[in-house]
């Protein structure tokens, strides 16, 4: 198996901003994303009610190192101050690097 290293950006934040967050990610040119529902606790307190306002989502994006930085910086600057959000980046190996390269014609 010939592998190529990419970055996995994991974002955990409020479910209520899902639509907007996705829009932001696509503007940044991610080739895809995966979302799962989650609950949890952090500096903004416990978030585990069944309904949207208390719920979290867990968003994963596999992309190139450079895009990972862009995403991290952009989200930090846009959301950290006002929303419950954490973000962490992991090194991953992928089989089909071409699947995870920035979409053409998108602003960095």
């Amino acid at each position: 198996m010939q592998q190529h290293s990419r970055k996995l950006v994991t974002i955990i934040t409020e479910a209520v901003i899902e639509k907007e967050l996705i829009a932001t990610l696509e503007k940044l040119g991610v080739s895809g994303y995966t979302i799962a529902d989650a609950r949890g606790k952090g500096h903004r307190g416990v978030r585990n009610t069944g309904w949207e306002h208390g719920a979290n989502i867990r968003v994963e994006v596999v992309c190139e190192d450079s895009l990972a930085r862009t995403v991290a910086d952009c989200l930090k600057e846009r959301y950290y101050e006002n929303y419950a959000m954490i973000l962490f980046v992991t090194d991953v190996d992928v089989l089909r690097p071409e699947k995870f390269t920035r979409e053409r014609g998108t602003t960095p």
Partner: protein
Amino acid sequence: MTALDPVILFFLVGAAAGLARSDLRIPSAIYDFLSIYLLLAIGLKGGVELAQYSLVALLPKMVAVVLLGVVLAATAYPILRRAGRFKRADAASIAAHYGSVSVGTYAVALAYLGSQKVEFESYMTLFLVLLEMPAIIVGVVLARGVTAQTQWGRLLHEVFAGKAIVCLLGGLVIGWIAGGDGLTSINEFFFDLFRGMLALFLLEMGLLCAAQMSALRRYGLFLIVFGVLMPLFAAVLGCGLGHLLGLSPGGTALLAVLAASASYIAAPAAMRISVPEANPSLSLAASLGVTFPFNVTLGIPLYLEMAKWIHRQT
């Protein structure tokens, strides 16, 4: 006494379970189902009878109701700023919640009027729809001013395409087209089960309400006082306007309920996105933790008395 109305008892049981840190949970899928059901059922019931009226004739009333929403938000704001010493964004967000409406409270009021055999104008549901929006816009303006920066398009879509308005309007249209006879085939589901579904919904509301207590403790007395006095003040306005519009005592009472109720679905979502710097737990603690329980237990019967009283005056 409504305190004896079983649906209210479900709310109290839910709240008690929540305070006892019970592991009782209504799955979110069920909560969504219940609220969709309530919205549709309310819409359908309203739509059936709406057929009797011409929207044109209702237009003046509708405008007046929209203004009511604006006025409520606009009066709540300075109070929150001055008396409450809230940051601009927080004051604006809370004001938006109280200018908008709570469908759960409205549903309880419908059940109460039903059990009290009080008649009311069927187009009240239309007012419910109309009151959802304006206060939210006022809230955003209060927080931001009318900057180009605000994405008004998105905000409008957020609310108009939101679950609440889509289901209410959808129900209204269906009921309006199908008419009473057309709906007989779905009566059992949407009307006979209404109170049972409402009971379960209130069980969950009780749990959600109890979950606000810690936040309430943190934000202290003012929110509690505001959460009780604001609806009372709003109810008076609502009663006055209802009387002015020549509504029946029942209709007047419902308008008072709409005015007194605070949103916990449309407004929170819209505010979180359009006024992110506002602390959402403040507004939820007030509307869910104080105003909702106050309205469904004491408020609604009180507002009905107010409405009856004001009608006796003339």
